[in-house]
């Protein structure tokens, strides 16, 4: 349902950051964009979304070139969840989630009953209805991330794109947020693209993974195939041990960083 064909991008001054990237995501799948800091993950995300223009190559949504889809139509189908950051004006949780309805509301109108109903549902789905009157400025990072996810749900999209949703959260909140994403995608048949720099999260969460390495190479495929010892050394410059453990009849991925690789 979402596809990138031969996308390349470079900032005005610098070298080519993304070169000839191709990838494909089906309905109901999760894709991880994996790589170390500063490698161009966020740039890739912005290019995919059309915030930045590919210098060559295109993104497709349901077979249509992204640039040819009118903005309002596009953002009914794609919802973007940025990294949790507070804005200057602190809105209530409800008002923040309501903003997700914008693509469905004509410009001269205000949100109506239906929008308020869907906003309530989104809050309930994420399990934060009880904090609808709290101010976003007074929430913890994890809570705010859930609010932004609820806002994405209020859009009723097909594809949700999340920029490092677990960054800056403690262990418990990381689990809450990641499980939430997994649940939502499985239950509602959404697709999702997630930026992360944790290989283990990519393994746990996603069907497919694309990694970016310093040499400008990229690897794309099934997560289990992509996240192996060899690629992790190339991408992160770290020697790792990867295996699976079974705890109470459940299988878990296990990834242990061993040493910094001296290539």
């Amino acid at each position, binding site marked *: 349902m979402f596809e990138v064909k031969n996308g390349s991008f470079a900032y005005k001054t610098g070298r080519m950051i993304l070169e000839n990237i191709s990838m494909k995501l089906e309905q109901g799948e999760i894709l991880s964009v994996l790589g170390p800091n500063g490698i161009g993950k966020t740039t890739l995300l912005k290019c995919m979304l059309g915030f930045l223009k590919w210098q060559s190559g295109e993104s497709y949504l349901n077979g249509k070139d992204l640039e040819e889809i009118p903005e309002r139509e596009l953002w009914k189908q794609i919802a*973007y969840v940025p990294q949790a950051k507070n804005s*200057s004006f602190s809105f209530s949780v409800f008002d923040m989630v309501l903003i997700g309805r914008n*693509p469905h509301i004509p410009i001269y109108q205000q949100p109506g009953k239906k929008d308020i109903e869907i906003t309530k549902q989104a809050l309930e789905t994420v399990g934060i209805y009880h904090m609808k009157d709290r101010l976003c400025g007074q929430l913890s990072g994890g809570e705010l991330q859930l609010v932004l996810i609820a806002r994405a749900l209020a859009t009723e999209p097909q594809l949700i794109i999340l920029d490092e949703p677990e960054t800056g959260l403690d262990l418990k909140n990381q689990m809450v947020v990641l499980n939430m994403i997994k649940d939502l995608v499985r239950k509602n048949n959404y697709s999702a693209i997630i930026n992360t720099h944790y290989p283990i999260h990519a393994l746990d969460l996603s069907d497919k993974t694309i990694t970016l390495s310093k040499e400008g190479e990229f690897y794309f495929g099934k997560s289990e195939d992509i996240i192996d010892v060899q690629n992790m050394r190339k991408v992160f410059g770290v020697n790792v041990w990867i295996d699976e453990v079974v705890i109470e009849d459940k299988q878990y991925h296990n990834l242990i960083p061993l040493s910094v690789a001296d290539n």
Partner: protein
Amino acid sequence: MIKLEGNKKKIFYLLLIVLPIFLAVYCIGQGRYPMTLHDVVVTLFSPFTEAQTDEKIFRTIFNMRLPRIILAMGAGAGLACAGASFQSLFANPLATPDTLGVTAGASVGAIIALLSGQNLIGVQFIALVFGVSTVLLTTFVSKVRGKSSITMLVLAGVIVSSLMSSVISILKYTADPYDDLPTITYWLMGSLAGASYSSLLLGLPLIVISVLIIFILRWRLNILSLSEDEAKSSGLNVKRIRMILIAASTMITASCVSMCGQVSWVGLLVPHMARMFCGNDNRMVIPTSISFGMMFMLIIDTVSRTLWASEIPISVLTSIIGAPFFIALLRKTGKEMA
């Protein structure tokens, strides 16, 4: 912040409409020529009811006080609305027509137009052009590597404002000291004394239309105060809506400046009063600011023309109230702004 729900919310909205009207009627009754509330109401409705009225009272109300009251309400509503809109547009609680330099810029335009003997349309047009140019200049100055922080924007506003003030000083210096200079000086301090139906006919529609545009787009102001990518990804045509709102807010400021000179502080003070009552949701902030703005200017103007034998300039009064309020605001929210 006071939480309003259900019926309380309805009553609050009703008060927003009713209170300014009552206050306006009350303020018409105040002034050198004494009249009772009863006189005011009877006379105001006399064109419809054909009731017998005192000739002097009739003329005082319709020729002198009513245009001034209408101007006070229009300017108050407009400036407060423009202030609230600028705050969200720049995601900056300190952004107002004054702090962005729009008021000073529009004043330069208006003075140039006045000195070159333009009529009110000319004054308004030139004030508008200068106002828009000043906003663009301020945003340009505040951008460092494509980004503009709250502090930078305010600093840029201070710089551009003082630049415009010095242009005003030059204009004053070269102005005819017997004829033009007193006019400019007095006008710069802000006064509603010049209100007349003919000037209202030209200036008020621009304010009303611009306020309406902002009112209709008020919910989108919430979205515009988020980060650029967030706003875009909500499907909003950020560039276009932002331009429309900046144009509307600047138009209001320019119109007010050309009709009643520099009236400072209203654009900062009133929206923040509104925020204290209803939080930051612009669906509430905009109507509340409009209503509060009307009442604020009605009170200020009535005090200005009744307190002393001679009129007190509006900006003197707004500053006396505004400066302490601004200090309190900085103390309360200063931490989050840096």
